């Protein structure tokens, strides 16, 4: 995989949100939602980004979708830096990169039929009109496990799982190559989750998709991902292949996360690592290693120096002084 040309690479990406206070709304500080992230995603893989709430996963996804402007840093999709694109180039980027949302209830316009919601993009991008458009929409609905006659229905007539299928169909109608899936199943029932996960995998092989899969659920990630990156307080702490991740996690934070996954088999149950305290505020992150306030192995160097994300084994990057001694 490493020989491939990267599909998407992120270099030194930062997003600071200003905190405004007082009568003149002066900037009194910054929330460091994404703080210096670099990663590379290759064609055909599922790259999972995991971490707890508020660690900047979704902000990263939105930055890749060009929904937000970064403070600094680059996002390069197919050798093009996306933030310096002109209008026309941006339109072609929109055809290639699409987004799937967490909440299937608010991500569909309640006033538009399913057919309108999905077919609109075809018209805006000048791909298909009239009957051709309808045929294409019906085809993509069927591809996503819905029926052609759902075309004229409104979103409120569908269940959560079906709506998520509609959202997926809308994202796929332009035949994109890269999908940012922002917690696509976390709002659904467990039984429906597996259906949607299977659908996403099936579509991946049918259409040759590449995913950035954002999730906080490690058991879902286990089914989907090829490579996994762990985020903590706006930065990456570990990046590895799936097998390395589940068998030899190196970063103490990753180990704690994995120990928290419920296990049905008593014999394989690990000792639960309970982290001390809360996640520090991203407006005022700790100096040195971001994780040192909660790390059970905290050393002197961790308080002073921020560890770099370095290779510990082939394809296994980790940012921890404990590993890189």
């Amino acid at each position, binding site marked *: 995989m490493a020989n491939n040309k990267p599909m998407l690479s992120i270099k030194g990406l930062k997003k600071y949100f200003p905190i405004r206070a007082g009568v003149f709304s002066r900037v009194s500080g910054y929330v460091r939602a994404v703080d210096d992230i670099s990663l590379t995603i290759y064609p055909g893989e599922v790259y999972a980004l995991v971490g707890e709430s508020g660690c900047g996963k979704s902000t990263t996804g939105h930055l890749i979708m060009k929904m937000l402007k970064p403070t600094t840093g680059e996002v390069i999709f197919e050798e093009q830096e996306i933030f310096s694109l002109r209008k026309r180039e941006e339109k072609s980027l929109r055809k290639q990169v699409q987004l799937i949302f967490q909440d299937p209830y608010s991500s569909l316009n309640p006033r538009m039929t399913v057919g309108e919601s999905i077919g*609109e993009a075809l018209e805006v991008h000048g791909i298909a009109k009239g009957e051709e458009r309808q045929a294409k929409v019906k085809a993509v609905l069927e591809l996503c496990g819905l029926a052609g006659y759902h075309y*004229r*229905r409104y979103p409120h007539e569908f269940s959560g799982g079906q709506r998520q299928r509609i959202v997926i169909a*809308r994202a796929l109608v*332009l035949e994109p190559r890269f999908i940012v899936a922002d917690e696509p199943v976390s709002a659904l029932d467990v039984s429906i989750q597996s259906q949607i996960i299977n659908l996403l995998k099936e579509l991946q092989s049918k259409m040759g998709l590449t995913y950035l899969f954002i999730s906080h659920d490690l058991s879902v990630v286990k089914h989907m991902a090829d490579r996994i990156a762990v985020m903590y307080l706006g930065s990456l702490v570990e990046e590895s292949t799936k097998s390395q991740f589940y068998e030899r996690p190196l970063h103490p934070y990753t180990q704690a996360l994995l120990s928290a996954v419920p296990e049905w088999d008593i014999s394989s149950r690990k000792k639960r690592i309970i982290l001390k305290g809360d996640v520090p505020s991203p407006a005022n992150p700790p100096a040195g290693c971001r994780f040192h306030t909660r790390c059970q192995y905290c050393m002197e160097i961790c308080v002073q120096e921020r560890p770099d994300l370095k290779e510990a084994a082939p394809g296994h990057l980790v940012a921890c002084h404990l590993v890189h001694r």
Partner: protein
Amino acid sequence: MKSGLLNDFMRAFQKNRQATFAAAILLGIIFFAIFAPVFATHNPTYIRLAQEQIQLPPTALHLLGTDNLGRDIWSRMLFGARISLLVGFLTMLITIIFGVAYGAVSGYYGGKLDFMMMRFVDISLSLPTIFLVIILASFFKPDFFGIAVIIGLTSWMRTARLVRGQFLSLKEEEFVTAARALGYSDCRIIFVHILPNVRALIIVNATLLVAQAVLLESALSFLGFGVQPPQFSWGSMLSASQQIIFLEEAPWTAFFPGLAIFITVLCLNFFGEGLRDAWDPKLKNIAS
């Protein structure tokens, strides 16, 4: 399924007897205004100054009596309704078009632009409406269209605020993010994706605006700054009976036009509130 939603709406609306009754009366008034020449018994502008012709009480010949210039009040009511309602409706159109556009831009783009635009709204709201209208009206000597523009200019602010608030919350919905991700233009997102979700609120607001405009036009005409003769509205009929001597001798010259204004505004308000409640009970107390 659009018809399904419409049916639900109609059922909820018809349950509200007050609003249904108001709607029926309004339809009646509009009907009379449109077919005024059919129902009018006299030429509404024909003046008879002979002593036995002026300020006649209601009789079979003059259904609602005659005014101080001997004109038939019933016929004048019918034709006056045309101007009153037309001004109300035009004002509403102008207010809605301008207010919605202003609110949509302010709410959708947000940030500094929104801040500036909303301060301008605050300033406009602090000007005393009636004086502003009088000053504008006395400068321009407007016809009924001009009056509608002037009243519209002083009443778009609340609509703009209302729409801005809705846009602020709707633009954070994920379907708007999805539309942006699909590469749609801002214009398309505002008009095709967000505006239809504010439609109910706008229509309700529009109904209440008509009521407000009818009242304001009456006040303006009463003070003599409204439509100028030979045009006349219910408000200018009232103004003819300003002097206390007419009220003592011929109270019907003021009573009937006043009653017409009262009933029309009341029905418009009931109708608007009925629409609002039928559309979405959650909207209670928001759309005014």
